[in-house]
């Protein structure tokens, strides 16, 4: 396959960036997208040009490290697929492909396609946990959890924290990310005692980081490589409202949707 890539190049956080074009004359359909970039980078090094910086690690769609806006879509055209799991057979011979970093105020560019997503870690620090010290846990089977609740919690817990939801949102909102964590823990009995404080603290940290508001465009859901749905945002909104009204944990267990 012959391809023309247009890639965002930016030396550092304070430098101006620009799109630069590169030919890739010999991509193969079996290659992954990142392997195609490896091939480009090897060639750039041979020519004495600095290779394109991009984040990646597991290359299995689970660590959440990779993330490129490909032809305007975070992680590219294949639904429910991270950049590292995208294969070149998704593209056609002769295609022009545009590669850009996540763009959001809360995710400043570090270099080329690499951005700083530490805001997500701070949102977790604000309350995305169950406060249980090592060694203090009761016997694991002492609290049964209905299978449907465990499954729903798992649906939310699959979030890989890649930030595609933010990159896809016209407001650069982090509602899908935050709601996935709030829901994962809020659905489980183990997470209920702190549910009200958790949602308030995480939402307020999210705002402080400069993420935008949710205006229900649902672009986040479409971009999410783990198919996490906007129903978790609705669930978080309910949890938030409830917490704000009562300012103390709900009395009931709140297991179902």
């Amino acid at each position, binding site marked *: 396959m012959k391809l023309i890539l247009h890639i965002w190049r930016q030396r550092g956080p304070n430098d101006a960036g620009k799109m630069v074009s590169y030919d890739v004359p010999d991509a193969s359909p079996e290659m*992954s997208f990142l392997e195609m970039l490896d091939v480009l980078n090897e060639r750039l090094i041979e020519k004495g040009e600095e290779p394109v910086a991009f984040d990646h690690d597991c290359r299995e769609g689970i660590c959440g*490290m990779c993330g490129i806006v490909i032809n305007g879509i975070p992680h590219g055209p294949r639904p429910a697929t991270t950049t590292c799991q995208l294969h070149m057979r998704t593209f056609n011979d002769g295609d022009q492909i545009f590669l850009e970093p996540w763009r959001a105020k809360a995710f400043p560019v570090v270099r080329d396609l690499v951005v700083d997503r530490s805001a997500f870690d701070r949102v977790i620090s604000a309350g995305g946990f*169950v406060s249980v010290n090592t060694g203090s846990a009761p016997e694991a089977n002492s*609290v049964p*959890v209905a299978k449907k609740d465990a499954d729903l919690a798992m649906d939310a*817990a699959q979030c890989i924290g890649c930030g595609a939801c933010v990159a896809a949102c016209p407001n650069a909102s982090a509602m899908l990310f935050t709601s996935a964590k709030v829901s*994962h823990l809020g659905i489980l009995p183990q997470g209920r005692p702190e549910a009200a404080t958790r949602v308030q603290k995480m939402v307020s940290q999210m705002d402080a980081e400069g993420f935008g508001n949710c205006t229900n465009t649902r672009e986040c859901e479409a971009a999410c490589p783990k198919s996490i749905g906007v129903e978790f945002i609705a669930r978080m909104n309910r949890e938030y409202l409830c917490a704000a009204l009562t300012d103390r944990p709900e009395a009931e267990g709140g297991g179902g949707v």
Partner: protein
Amino acid sequence: MTIELKSNIPSGPMEGKWEKHRFEMKLVNPANKRKYTILVVGTGLAGASAAASLAELGYKVKAFCFQDSPRRAHSIAAQGGINAAKNYCNDGDSVHRLFYDTVKGGDYRAREANVHRLAEISVSIIDQCVAQGVPFAREYGGLLANRSFGGTQVSRTFYARGQTGQQLLLGAYPALQRQIGLGAVQMFPRTEMLDVILVNGAARGIVVRNLVTGRIESHTGDAVCLATGGYGNLFYLSTNAKGCNVTAIWRAHRRGALMANPCFTQIHPTCIPVSGEYQSKLTLMSESLRNDGRIWVPKEKGDKRPAAQIPEDQRDYYLERRYPSFGNLVPRDVASRAAKAACDEGRGVGPGGLGVYLDFGDAIRRLGEKTIADKYGNLFEMYERITDENPYRTPMRIYPAIHYTMGGLWVDYNLMSTIPGLFVLGEANFSDHGANRLGASALMQGLADGYFIIPYTIGHYLANAKLEKVEPDAPACKAVIEEVAGRTARLLGVKGRRSPDSFHKELGKVMWDNCGMGRNAAGLQKAIQRIPEIREEFWKNISVLGTGEQLNQQLEKAGRVADFLEFGELTCRDALHREESCGGHFREEHQTPDGEAKRDDEKFAYVAAWEWKGEGQKPELNKEPLTFEIVHPTQRSYK
């Protein structure tokens, strides 16, 4: 002079050792804990659980990882599950059986006392994780579900779909983030540790490079924990994440920590075969697939018909044939070697004949497609995405790949290396898995080390050690900073023509060909001769563009490859000296007439711990003899 390796295993009966040791270890007064600073390098399951637990106890902790967030450590990729001796299935499991299986599975090259402790702790790990909100799979009654996994006959594996590592790390990482929020842990992401600082012989600090600004600086403290994961990427192609490396433990080795059993590497039988030259990593298909999939190759050599056209009686279900009682569930080393043997006979399938079938046809007929989709849907999807083949219709093609490394820095029962104050946790230590790790045991070990062992043993060390404060600008720190800066400058200064990846691939091929699934003296000697030549060429011809004062991914890679180039040679030396076959280490000269591994307990029932003797010098071998009080060595038989 050889070093005396003190394992510090407590005396007394096996079942009571850990309990007794916990009582006998000294405690640090709660008010004094905050006076100690502990540096934790790595935030995978081992590092994150250690950092969080130590901070909960009141220690000041600084934690480091090279990814942009602690949540992305390679532990996140573990799929299949985590073992624990809960016996929830009432199928005969117990602490003793998990202990027994692990010692036997490790082919009698692990320390019994460590393994017993691991089995004891396994049950508390599950309690801890459930309390943190880890959404393990459950039965309809609301209780936890279990499955059997990788070479065991009881169901003791806990799992969260095919994403167990992710969910366990999303238990440990928030625990760590909570401590960061409380100010008890200071976190340094995108920071790579490049050396250890010793003061009066004890580990007192580390030198790191900030990967964004390029700044090289020191951090000091009272103890250092390395939880930096495995070195599978020595082979270039492996199931490990691209960033996995040996640098942290190799640098510690060069400062005096002994490296144990580096040749014990695990090859996983169920990975997607290589598809081309550009291949950058191999993808694991969880071993849980072997519970329902049947492995076969054509009976005839060179039979190139599509799988569907090969009739039942012309298929060789070679694992079921050779190992009737374990069948497709034989341990990893056995399954991998059998696949290699079938391919070596010319019966392999797919491009290049390097693959065997993993067939779900029978299981789908028996259980229905829906049940299979419920169990393995995400794995099937992943397979299809990568290969463009639908495993519900045609059998999967799989081939073994490097997956896990049992070797690592030598540690005593307290997880301390031969450098006082330098502790090693998780896959980075030489671990409790002997010569072969059973499935679902690495997650267990990482979390045992981090949550339940290091919090005790580090206190014991600190309470006994007399440590004076070391400032980050002390002469010892400055000297190491200078060395690290010098090495970085050297990498940038060669200005050669070849990329770090090209060297890495070359080394990986030498390792895989000579120190992979089958090893022999001639091949290993060839590798020991070849690797220094590649190393020499590396330092003459490496190209690292750009500067050191910025994010420079080539520079990061080059540094890691340079260390692999030294470490690879040691690995081959270890493999050459071990004149026996055991676990993942198969020496072709040492096999039974029917091709099974032949151990030599008389000569090799020891841990090989290698000592760095300086650049260009031969490493020196030290031995820790292994004794077996309870699980007496026999030939492992899975027939």
